[in-house]
């Protein structure tokens, strides 16, 4: 294998490699499979621009410097490597030959590069996304193998999804188990969608099937298992809500879902009807109107009794924009009510009265006022 060939894929443009993955990530789909080299994959979301450094200079790997100088971008991976690097960072930095930024999809995790002498080194690959375990093998012959497994990418979104779910307060064991399995699994395919995206009853099924079909055949059983798990979890959630609903519906001892839902629909309809109808029940309306009228009549009576001399004669339209129609209505009722009103001429609480001039129709005003506030001022007069 020529070194130049290596360089071509090693220096693959970062954006090209990751654009697919990033797009997938947004869609909550999981990436394709990784080469089965792997190891315990550490799930950690890391910056995509990661830089991987070469084996330590202390081991004296002599490799031709790269054609492209590595951009100095220190990242987390850099930190990870630093502990494996030699004791003298100066020397290693001078020797740092290659910048490997590789995609886990396209890269074999272990690459052997034959350079001078006995030294064969494997370039760590794919650490840009997953960041992972690095195995440093030093053999007697001076062979240095730095192998990196990067199963972490797929773990990234799944962990994010898990955290998301936890944020929502949906934290159950199944989720955790699933996540763990996904972390250990190199090919993680289906049913990330089922975690966060709430899909309809059957649509969920279909989605997952679609994903699992796209995955590798050998992983199908595992995918089905994961799917089963997510499906069960979803059903649990639905059952939970069902139970809550059942508690809200009185006299609902239905056991099966269909009649439960039926009941819920009927009950909801009846409640809506109640709320809609209750304020507009004719006696209810007239009741309010009657009490408002009584209140206003009391007010006018009070005025006419002399407590409000500035308003002039009773039932004439005062200088405020009082329409005459309510006044005339009151005058009709006046005779029958007068005695009581006089008896109960104690000032009726009418806090809205000073604002009356701003309102075109005082009756409407008080009506609205009473609608707003549940408290009805005690109208002591009786008809």
């Amino acid at each position, binding site marked *: 294998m020529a070194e130049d060939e290596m360089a071509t894929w090693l220096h693959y443009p970062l954006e090209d490699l990751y654009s697919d993955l990033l797009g997938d990530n947004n869609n909550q789909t999981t990436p394709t499979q990784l080469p089965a080299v792997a190891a315990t994959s550490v799930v950690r979301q890391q910056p995509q621009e990661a830089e991987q450094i070469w084996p330590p200079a202390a081991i004296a790997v002599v490799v031709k410097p790269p054609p492209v100088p590595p951009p100095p971008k220190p990242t987390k991976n850099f930190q990870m490597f630093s502990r494996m690097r030699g004791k003298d960072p100066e020397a290693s930095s001078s020797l740092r030959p290659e910048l490997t930024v590789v995609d886990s999809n396209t890269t074999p995790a272990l690459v052997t590069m034959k350079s001078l002498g006995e030294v064969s080194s494997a370039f760590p690959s794919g650490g840009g996304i997953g960041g992972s375990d690095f195995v440093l093998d030093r053999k007697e012959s001076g062979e240095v193998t730095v192998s990196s497994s990067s199963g972490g990418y797929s773990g990234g979104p799944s962990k994010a999804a898990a955290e998301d779910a936890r944020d929502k307060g949906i934290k159950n064991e199944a989720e955790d188990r699933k996540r763990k399995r996904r972390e250990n699994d190199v090919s993680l395919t289906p049913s990330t969608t089922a975690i966060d995206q709430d899909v*309809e009853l059957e649509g969920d*099924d279909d989605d997952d099937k679609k994903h699992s079909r796209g995955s590798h055949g050998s992983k199908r059983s595992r995918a089905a298992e994961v799917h089963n798990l997510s499906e069960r979890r979803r059903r649990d959630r639905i059952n939970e809500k069902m139970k809550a609903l059942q508690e809200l519906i009185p006299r609902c001892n239905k056991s*099966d879902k269909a009649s439960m839902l039926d009941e819920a*629909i009927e009950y909801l309809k009846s409640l809506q009807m109640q709320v809609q109808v209750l304020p507009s029940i004719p006696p209810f309306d007239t009741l309010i109107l009657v009490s408002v009228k009584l209140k206003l009549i009391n007010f006018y009576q009070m005025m006419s009794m002399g407590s409000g001399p500035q308003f002039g004669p009773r039932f004439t339209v005062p200088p405020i924009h009082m329409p005459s129609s309510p006044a005339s209505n009151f005058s009709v009722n006046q005779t029958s009510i007068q005695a009581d009103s006089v008896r109960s001429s104690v000032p009726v609480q009418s806090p809205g009265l000073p604002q009356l001039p701003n309102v075109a129709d005082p009756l409407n005003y008080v009506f609205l006022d009473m609608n707003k506030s549940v408290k009805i001022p005690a109208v002591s007069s009786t008809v």
Partner: protein
Amino acid sequence: MSSRRSRSRQTGGSRITDDQIQDLVSKLQQLLPELHNTRRPDKVSASRVLQETCNYIKTLHREVDGLSERLSQLLETTDTTQAALIRSLLMQ
């Protein structure tokens, strides 16, 4: 594989009720003002519909309670004969 088969058989057997339930859930969804104007009404999950139903029922309960309390207050403050009349009307 046996578990797989049983599972598929199970879903196949309950297909009808699943459809029915989906139908009912969508009916339920239409009654919910929160979910009535969602962008993609077919993409609302069943559990969300159920959750919203619970919330909505609670809201309606509160509303009915408030209204009936108001009504009883009104009935208390009015004349007994009138109140009796209204009560009889309400009981109809």
